[in-house]
């Protein structure tokens, strides 16, 4: 537990900043909804004229005139991208930062096995992602209550859960990759997050490319499907879980045998 709490303390400032920024932006999106509601029918018409562009961002299946339709898209833009960037930074730095900062030697010469070090760091990544999502969700529900909109609680919870899973997936995959790196690696982390985002956009453009949805965790968070079906697409989540497990197991094996030079 010592290392787990140490990790939380080290990342405290970063967690507070990312949580505040994402929560603030999502709250702003909620607060401007009443003002935008009147213009939504025009916007829905505008988006329907944009063909593939609308589909690419998953807006073709959502009704912007309703709060849940609006929230499904905005939530995706803010919590999806923001959360994924946060998770990828956390994951990619978890193990490699110790080597980059030369603190790995200090840490690993204490009587703690590398497996325990890796598990403590992984749990710390998961807990930080949970804290961010919990706080963002609390602020969002509060904002919705303030503007007096009637939201579908179950769908909103499903959306938040889907974004939590997305971030866990990206955090876990970058965590596994970080076991292979020993120097500055933020670019790799961002790269994984951004690539997953664009793979999802491309997969929405044409049905022929839909199979690539299986390799991006952004497929968990399709607002259109979740809002319309009040359910998650488990086929994508299960494949994601398998990819996450493979990445973590590979990372654990690598880090356990790695030379710290």
């Amino acid at each position: 537990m010592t290392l787990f709490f140490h990790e939380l303390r080290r990342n405290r400032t970063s967690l507070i900043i990312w949580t505040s920024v994402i929560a603030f932006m999502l709250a702003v999106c909620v607060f401007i909804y009443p003002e935008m509601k009147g213009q939504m029918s025009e916007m829905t018409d505008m988006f329907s004229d944009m063909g593939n562009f609308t589909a690419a961002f998953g807006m073709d299946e959502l009704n912007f005139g309703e709060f849940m339709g609006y929230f499904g898209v905005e939530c995706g833009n803010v919590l999806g991208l923001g959360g994924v960037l946060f998770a990828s930074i956390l994951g990619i730095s978890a193990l490699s930062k110790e080597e980059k900062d030369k603190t790995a030697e200090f840490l690993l010469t204490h009587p703690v096995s590398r497996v325990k070090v890796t598990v403590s760091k992984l749990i710390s990544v998961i807990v930080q992602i949970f804290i961010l999502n919990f706080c963002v969700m609390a602020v969002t529900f509060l904002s919705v209550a303030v503007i007096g909109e009637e939201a579908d609680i179950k769908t909103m919870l499903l959306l938040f859960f889907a974004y939590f899973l997305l971030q866990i997936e990206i955090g876990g995959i970058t965590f596994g990759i970080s076991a292979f790196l020993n120097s500055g690696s933020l670019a790799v982390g961002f790269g994984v997050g951004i690539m997953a985002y664009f793979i999802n956009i491309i997969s929405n453009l044409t049905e022929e490319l839909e199979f690539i949805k299986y390799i991006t965790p952004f497929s968990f968070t399709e607002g259109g499907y979740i809002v319309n079906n009040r359910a998650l697409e488990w086929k994508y989540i299960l494949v994601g879980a398998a990819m996450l497990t493979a990445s973590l197991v590979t990372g654990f094996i690598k880090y356990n045998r790695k030379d710290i030079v």
Partner: protein
Amino acid sequence: MKAINTEHLTKYYGSKRGIVDVSLSVDKGDFFGFIGPNGAGKSTTIRTLLGLICPTSGSASVLGKDIIKDKTRVLASVGYMPSESSFYGTMKVKDLIAFSAKMRGIDCSVEAKKLCERLELDTERRVNELSFGNRKKVSIVCALQHNPELYILDEPTSGLDPLMQREFYAILRERNDNGATVFLSSHVLSEVSRYCKSAAVIREGRILVSDKVEKLGHTGVKRISLRTPAELPEIEGIKDIKRENENINFLYSGDIKALISELGRLPFEDINIADPDLEEVFIHYYAKEDN
């Protein structure tokens, strides 16, 4: 039971040599010096003993425990001080020292306080505000606060001022007198000859010699100083000749009677024959044979 025992320990980084066939034996209670030039393999040996790197072949045990199978138990009995200390920069010194103790699962606060006082370490400052020497002191406290059975110290005194070096060695001597084993790598040959009971020399990844320090001095080589206006004749076994005006200084290994008989033919005014000092012996091992 040996404090450290390695058998044919070898480490290659890809095709690059780390250490080759290193067989070392350090007795419990010894004060052992591990010396060698830069890149000789000192740190690779130490890092292998601590499980930071995996050996390519060979085996090693620390305090009777295998360094791979019993790594965690080995680390619990060892206090390690790296040559360059890097810590979590934003932490306060006192928090870092407490974190290190917690990672060992023991309360070392009393011993840590004593060490900080002896080393005059300000524990309220943040690590990234410390000078190199003060970071070294933090490293000493982290390595010593849990009173380990074995101290593995990689160039421990670099960056410490002479008074602190003396205090540091005083602490190590106390620990050694109480039965702990000290294994230190150093470039400061005078330190090794002054404090160590045994020493090993490593060069190009291989152990050249390992013995009691007093035995290492008896190499059969003599340092000869001679004052003569004449040229030195060709004598087998002479090397490292230095000439300054009429003073000639050289090392000789061989039959001393034969040397005196040869030198007797020279018109010399003064002669001195002595064992070379330990530093000179170490330098002799440091230097490549072809030099």
